């Protein structure tokens, strides 16, 4: 009685598991490696690939391999073999029982291609401990693959569109230079005394016109720099540069700017020379941009503190810090600080002419060098910008 009870329990269990296996929307297949025969294939093979389980169990693994897409078959078989070799030779528990996954195309009974994702695991080992049976669980990922393709196409289109927008801006910017150059020449002729003496008013008005035209030209320059960056056309020319010297030169070249506002720059480098491999022209432009901001956004007579030092922790590298006693940046303006065309409004912003591209440009250049920019600031409390250059740029 007990035996038959056990047996009937077993039969019920088997039937239950068999029922579950046949309803599961994933293909389950167990095959024997030496013979290449399938021990078991569940009914999902019909729903997913249109074959009957007997099509597989009668014809074996070789037949199924022949159904694989020609572009995928090589790497699938290679990956499979690699996994088997690892499972047979690995020493660790984890190494001996890997879960290997594959994504590939296989032919549906009606001839179309179906994308499958298959997980393979070790099912049984022989007396010598070598893998004898493998269990594969496969699901249909055709829809997911098609969605991925569509997404990739949209992304490509967007990138192409973005590139064409940048190229358009570059073309328009170059063309804007032409009339602005003509204006510069004619106003220059009047202002530089090539025509006839000017009255005070005439000179003042013409000078204002000339300066605003120069502003236009600067904006065009900024636009071109930025489109170059965005189009990844910016090529850095790395040269061995003395960073201390470069910063000193930047401060000097802005001498008139600081003088006009009676501002004093205090430069304290940690050593006389700090050699780095950077693009000196671009780094100089970044330093000058931040220095100019420090001056523009500080009142008359304020001080600007510039420091440069080697960073002595694990991260290493160089840190250049430019600190001002200016109007500072309020919390609400922080998110827009490094964005293109963002001009922050504060008590001094009306007197500053700018395209709003400066900090975006600075950020991109430093990032291209592998470094990063940090800002510490609060409204009314001045700002500190730190340029961090990575350790690898200090290597000989």
């Amino acid at each position: 009685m007990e035996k038959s009870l056990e047996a009937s329990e077993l039969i019920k269990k088997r039937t239950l598991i068999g029922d579950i296996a046949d309803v599961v929307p994933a293909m389950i297949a167990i095959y024997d490696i030496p013979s290449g025969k399938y021990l078991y294939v569940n009914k999902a093979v019909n729903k997913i690939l249109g074959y009957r389980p007997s099509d597989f169990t009668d014809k074996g693994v070789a037949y199924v391999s022949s159904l694989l897409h020609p572009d995928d078959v090589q790497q699938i078989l290679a990956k499979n073999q690699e996994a088997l070799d690892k499972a047979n030779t690995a020493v660790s528990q984890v190494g001996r029982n890997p879960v290997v996954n594959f994504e590939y195309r296989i032919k549906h009974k009606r001839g179309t291609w179906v994308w499958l994702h298959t997980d393979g695991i070790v099912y049984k080992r022989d007396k010598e401990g070598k893998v004898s049976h493998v269990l594969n669980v496969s699901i249909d990922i055709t829809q997911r693959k098609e969605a991925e393709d569509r997404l990739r196409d949209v992304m490509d289109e967007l990138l192409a569109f973005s590139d064409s927008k940048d190229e358009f801006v570059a073309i328009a910017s170059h063309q804007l230079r032409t009339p602005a150059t003509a204006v510069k020449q004619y106003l220059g002729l009047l202002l530089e005394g090539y025509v006839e003496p000017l009255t005070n008013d005439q000179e003042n008005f013409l000078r204002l016109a000339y300066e605003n035209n120069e502003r236009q030209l600067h904006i065009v320059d900024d636009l071109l720099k930025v489109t170059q960056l965005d189009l990844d056309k910016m090529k850095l020319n790395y040269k061995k540069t003395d960073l201390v010297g470069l910063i000193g030169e930047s401060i000097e070249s802005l001498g008139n700017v600081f003088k006009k506002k009676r501002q004093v720059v205090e430069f304290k480098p940690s050593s006389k020379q700090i050699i780095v491999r950077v693009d000196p022209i671009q780094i100089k432009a970044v330093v000058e941009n931040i220095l100019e901001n420090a001056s523009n956004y500080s009142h008359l007579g304020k001080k600007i503190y510039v420091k440069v030092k080697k960073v002595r922790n694990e991260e290493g590298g160089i840190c250049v810090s430019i600190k001002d006693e200016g109007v500072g940046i309020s919390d609400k303006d922080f998110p827009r600080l490094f964005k293109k065309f963002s001009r922050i409004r504060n008590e001094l912003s009306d007197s500053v002419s700018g395209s709003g591209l400066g900090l975006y440009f600075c950020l991109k250049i430093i990032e291209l060098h592998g470094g990063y920019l940090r800002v510490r600031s609060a409204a009314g409390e001045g700002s500190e910008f730190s340029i961090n250059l990575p350790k690898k740029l200090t290597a000989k």
Partner: protein
Amino acid sequence: MAKVLIIEDEKHLNDAYQIVLKKAGYTIVAAYDGKEALDVYEKDRPDLILLDLRMPNVSGLTFLKTLNSRHKKLKAKIVVFSNYDDQKEIDEAFKLGADRYILKAWSSPTELIKIVKETLKTKK
């Protein structure tokens, strides 16, 4: 006084440069495209050429190439300018015999005269 040939396809700019250099005392000849410029060069043999690189039909570089093919040794000094900072173009221009490059948008009349004066002084 030295003779300067101005090759620039934008009429307003060409006229402005003519006024600037005339005021500085130079003799001026002008051309508005590369083809015309080749004829003017042969006729007038200037001491210095102000050459716009981007021109329709015959570009500045083509003008230089043709000039080089016709004359083994170019006596005229050449200042090339454009509003495009195309490094490839600039390098090619120097290879073809340009002595100096300036960006049009950054040169005021006084700066232009300074550059012409300096370039005329240099040895070819």
